[in-house]
């Protein structure tokens, strides 16, 4: 033949598995390649997200890699090689696997009928599929004291443990909390904690999920159900804005479990305990199940009429700007859109804000160039933490970042107001006190940025006592160095709410009110004439009597807004309409309370910090007459004279896709195609308005500290007084009580003992807290926790003041 055909270099590896030729990825493990070829090799210790240890020996198969002929090898350890021949069914393989199973069973109790894992247990399944008919082991089995609690959330039954090293590897490798470990040796090996040092990891629930037998169980799920009684749906966790993929399981209309699903783009199968156990709150007895008028149970028709009248009266009296809407981060994208349309089009007010004065300016956040979690987690990349502690606020993002640094060799640079959960791994740490120095820190950080690597900044408002303008300026310095951003705004669907326009000056699709007005005038009809108020301004206006109706859309400003006094004054003046799943202090005096459906009770979508659209599915029905937020919006709109025209969440999505610049192209078919969720990255065009661009940021004011004061830093913890924690049985007891932490030198100056009570005095008010020395605190700052029991810090804060300085008084 004269013709030569250029064959592209082969990028796959040809292997034979049980006589079938398949192409495998180079480096792929035999156990994975076999799975893709439809051959399941039994395993216990192997877990694709943990480093392989090859110790259970269940996955032994005959592997012939040329040379020495077939030999029994653990398929979880051996990568494929060209022309490899694998036999998973030979007599020898069967015998070896039977042998391993028999070995595992000699010390494993046969208590499947009372074991939580019964029915979903690989050991049970493998025994039925491969195992010996009856045990030849006639002696006493190994005995241990019955289940011991190794933490508040997890119980360990050592008799059932098969020592696969999964939980222990997870604790060390993934969570970085090596608090459970093998102890003893040989057949007396067991997993346990150090005496009196519980496995208090934010991620402990994952060990329950990956335990291949029933050795680890969660105290909440124990004995609650059998797997075959469960109804389940694929969904997304809305405990924070990471958007972890989950399976929600229910039985008899109660949500029983949330299990992590391996979404390669997002959570890799992991969940944090707040997300995993927070779903319990859905079942709470305290859920709002009927509307309230002035605190008394009412019919929907009456409650809706009353709410409508309040709104209509206010608009009639002082114009649409007399109505404000605070909140919305709890909502699905579809509900957020419906509420945006209700507020901005039907009522006509731009006083709408999904954030509670503790976040960052919406148009700034939406204008930043966005990174994905995978980009942030890339090997050898650079991660900059700017003013935030992902471990406390975005648990699974923390796991991904930690992995990038520990396993991927990524460089971590921390710019913040003291230590974060990742400080130990940071190559450079720039700590500053609030009041502007963060800008200098950002400049210094830029000077140490490794060159030629992608830079991802995780940007958040770690303390409400730092001026967002300072963070914005610092962010712009990094943006100029080529960084892309992951916004660490952590409330459930806050990113979706902002995308849908639940912020002053914005319209759905990451579009500014000004630039989107003509388009939306077409799409919707009228939209507000001028930019409205954010939460702080709304509360101020209410307190001043200029805003008479305040809609709290799943918001509790009394606890969350950084100025309790202002909120009290506002709530005393305005009429409140609360739409929520639970009653809260802010809605205590509400004129109308409308009960909303919660997570797990509605279909729809949510949006994570990347802008990724992820599906939500219903697995239980709402309590009483509670209903989806978008239905409530539609009902109110109808009574205000406009039919939003929505009959289903799908229908709303169709409209979002049709009008939102950022969501163009993401129709339902496109979404359904990608189980990882799709990142909304549309830029407008085709008649749609342009999305927000990187904004101009004026330099922030530097506010030097006077000698006599300390500057307050308010940190967040994973477990706080938020709804998911407070109403989940498992989590309710976990929030720490508040304390004052000072740099050791500042603490010394106080001359008090560790834990002694100290009064923290601000202009606004004072609180009393036990004081501790802590080297993780910046000199000259006083660090306290926000929204935990003990003492409510927002007593001390004034919304109009960019910083809070305090004096400490010791009672002698």
């Amino acid at each position, binding site marked *: 033949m004269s013709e030569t055909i250029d064959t592209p270099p082969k990028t796959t590896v040809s292997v034979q598995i049980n006589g079938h030729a398949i192409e495998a990825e180079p480096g792929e493990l035999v156990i994975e390649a076999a799975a893709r070829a439809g051959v399941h090799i039994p395993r216990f210790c192997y877990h694709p997200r943990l480093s392989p240890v*090859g*110790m259970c020996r269940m996955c032994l198969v005959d592997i012939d890699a040329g040379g020495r002929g077939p030999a029994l090898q653990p398929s979880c350890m051996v990568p494929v090689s060209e022309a490899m021949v694998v036999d998973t069914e030979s007599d020898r393989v069967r015998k070896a696997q039977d*042998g391993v199973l028999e*070995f595992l069973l*000699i010390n494993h109790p046969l208590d499947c009928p009372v074991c939580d894992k019964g029915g979903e247990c690989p050991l049970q399944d493998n025994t039925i599929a491969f195992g010996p008919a009856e045990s030849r082991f006639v002696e006493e089995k190994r005995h241990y004291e019955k289940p011991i609690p190794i933490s508040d959330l997890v119980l360990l039954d050592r008799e059932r443990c098969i020592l696969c090293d999964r939980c222990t590897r997870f604790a060390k490798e993934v969570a970085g909390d090596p608090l459970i470990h093998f102890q003893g040796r040989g*057949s007396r090996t067991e997993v346990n904690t150090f005496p009196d040092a519980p496995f208090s990891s934010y991620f402990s629930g994952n060990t329950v999920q990956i335990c291949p037998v029933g050795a680890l169980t969660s105290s909440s799920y124990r004995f609650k159900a059998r797997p075959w009684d469960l109804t389940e749906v694929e969904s997304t966790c809305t405990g924070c804005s990471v958007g972890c993929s989950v399976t929600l399981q229910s039985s008899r209309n109660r949500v029983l479990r949330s299990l992590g699903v391996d979404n390669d783009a997002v959570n890799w199968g992991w969940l944090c305990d707040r997300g995993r156990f927070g779903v319990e709150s859905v079942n709470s007895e305290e859920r709002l199940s009927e509307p309230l008028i002035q605190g008394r149970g009412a019919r929907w028709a009456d409650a809706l009429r009353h709410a409508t009248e309040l709104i209509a009266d206010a608009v009639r009296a002082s114009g649409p700007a007399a109505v404000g809407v605070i909140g919305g981060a709890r909502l699905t994208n579809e509900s957020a859109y419906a509420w945006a349309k209700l507020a901005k089009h039907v009522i006509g007010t731009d006083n709408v804000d999904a954030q509670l004065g503790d976040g960052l300016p919406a148009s700034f956040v939406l204008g930043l160039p966005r990174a994905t979690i995978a980009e942030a987690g890339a090997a050898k990349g650079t991660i900059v933490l700017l003013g935030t502690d992902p471990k406390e606020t975005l648990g699974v993002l923390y796991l991904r970042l930690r992995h990038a640094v520990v396993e991927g060799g990524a460089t971590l640079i921390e710019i913040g107001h003291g230590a974060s959960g990742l400080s130990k791994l940071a190559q450079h740490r720039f700590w500053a006190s609030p009041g502007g120095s963060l800008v200098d820190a950002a400049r210094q950080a830029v000077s140490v940025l490794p060159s030629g690597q992608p830079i991802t900044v995780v940007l958040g408002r770690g303390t409400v006592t730092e001026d967002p303008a300072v963070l914005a300026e610092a962010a712009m310095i990094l943006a100029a160095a080529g960084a892309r951003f992951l916004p660490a705004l952590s409330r459930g669907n806050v990113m979706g709410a902002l995308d849908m326009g639940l912020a002053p000056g914005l319209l759905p699709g990451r579009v500014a009110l000004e630039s989107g007005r003509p388009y939306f005038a077409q799409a919707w009809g009228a939209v507000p004439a001028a930019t409205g108020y954010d939460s702080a301004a709304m509360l101020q206006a209410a307190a001043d009597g200029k805003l008479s109706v305040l809609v709290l859309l799943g918001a509790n400003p009394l606890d969350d807004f950084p100025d309790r006094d202002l909120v009290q004054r506002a709530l005393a003046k305005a009429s409140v309409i609360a739409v929520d799943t639970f009653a809260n202090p802010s809605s205590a005096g509400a004129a109308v309370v409308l009960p909303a459906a919660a997570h797990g009770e509605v279909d729809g979508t949510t949006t994570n910090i990347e802008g990724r659209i992820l599906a939500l599915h219903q697995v239980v029905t709402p309590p009483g007459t509670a209903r989806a937020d978008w239905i409530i919006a539609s009902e109110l709109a109808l009574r205000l004279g406009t039919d939003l025209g929505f009959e289903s969440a799908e229908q709303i999505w169709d409209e979002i896709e049709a009008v939102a610049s950022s969501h163009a192209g993401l129709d339902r078919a496109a979404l359904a195609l990608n189980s990882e969720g799709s990142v909304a990255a549309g830029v407008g065009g085709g008649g749609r308005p342009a999305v927000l661009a990187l904004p101009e940021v004026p330099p922030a004011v530097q506010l030097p500290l006077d000698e006599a004061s300390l500057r307050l830093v308010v940190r967040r913890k994973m477990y706080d007084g938020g709804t998911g924690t407070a109403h989940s049985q498992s989590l309710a007891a976990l929030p720490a009580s508040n304390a004052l932490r000072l740099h050791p030198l500042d603490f010394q100056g106080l001359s008090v003992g560790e834990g002694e009570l100290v009064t923290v005095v601000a202009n606004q008010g004072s609180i009393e807290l036990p004081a501790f020395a802590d080297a993780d605190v910046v000199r000259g700052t006083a660090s306290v926790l926000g929204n935990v029991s003990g003492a409510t810090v927002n007593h001390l804060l004034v919304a109009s003041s960019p910083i809070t300085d305090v004096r400490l008084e010791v009672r002698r």
Partner: protein
Amino acid sequence: MTAPIVQLVTSRLHHADSYTLARFEATGGYEGLRKALSMTPAAVHDEIRAATLLGRGGAGFPAGVKWGFTPPGVWPRYLVVNGDESEPGTYKDRMLMERDPHQLIEGCLIACYAAGLSQCFLYVRGEMALAQTRVATALNEAYAAQYVGRNILGSNFSVDIVLHWGAGAYIVGEETALIESLEGNRGMPRLKPPYFPAAIGLYGKPTVVNNVETLSNLGGIIVRGSEDYKQYGSESSPGTRMFAVSGHVRRPGVYEVQHGVTTFRELLYDEQFCGGIRNGNALKAFIPGGGSSPWFFEEQLDLPLEARPVGGAGSMLGSGAIVVMDETTDAVKACLRVVRFYARESCGKCTPCREGTSWLETILQRIVDGHGRPADIDMLLDVGDNISPGPYPAASWESEGLAAVPFPPKQTTICPLGPSAVAPVVSALRRFRPEFEAKIRRRALGIPVRVEDSTHV
């Protein structure tokens, strides 16, 4: 004719002060180091390679070749000295560490120089308090005298030797477990491949692991040269080897014999060595290479003490430990005792080893206690087969028409410890099955392990 006795590594041990620097220097000590430093590292390496110095820790791999497995251009490289000696029957490394620590130190230095190893960790078994004292003292002396540390003997060769000690775990003798232990972890073997820590070892870096006796030979080889060294021993196994012979011989002891030349029969029966079985009793069986090795019998006595023929005959030379059992021995009890060792020492990583070895022990214990069941014999073999599948290495028994199954065994485990527990089971059952059956029939044979007229003092 029995090969003449030569003492290459034990030459100094008869001196009461053999462990002191003064005695060492007075008997040619550190001459090997001085000579090595006058050569290039590559030349030193070549000399050791030429000497075919086989590892004395068990696997018998040539040291010079192993050093060459360190990947080029990857630094630093470490030397880890395996002084964990714990194999049942073995007693030689402790003797060398207690009584000639400087000879070992000199060997470490030569290895580091030749193979470019930047730091040396000398891991002594935890229970060996005296060896630790002697090695520490010797190191302190050697540092003071410029033999170890910075700019050794004024050269540009600098290396620290760090004394490290274990805490009681046989498995830590396995080289990857040794490295784990040296990193402060539980001593659990690492997965193979890589087959040698030379590629990825301590702290993930290239690491040479050598046995105490192996290293103790280096000084002598450099001083006399590989040619001279090779006049002793056989062509494929030059030099000498230390063997600890214990059990029912008239003169148990540690003997240095010519490697690959002297036979088991000579070592066990010659007057200059063990002088025969005690009380003129008949030999029942002997363990040729430590507890892990399948048993040999009368028929194997004329094999030379050399790895290859011993392997072909169904066992291994292992760590130079020969345990002799005379006709009075209760084979079932002996078998149980060796199995119990592996059951107790399993690190617990692999299911078959963790559960299987203790199961074997349980079955054997009940047979010894008189509660055995007829099915137990097949069960012992089958449980053994699930730890080490396929025909297990065994010695031939010609009169019964049984051929040898060559070493090594196959394994369902990560390291050879689990399969080692199968060696006594298969060995004893193959040869002494009636004893098991008799016990199971509850007819106690009444063969005491210890007989009253034993000659030991």
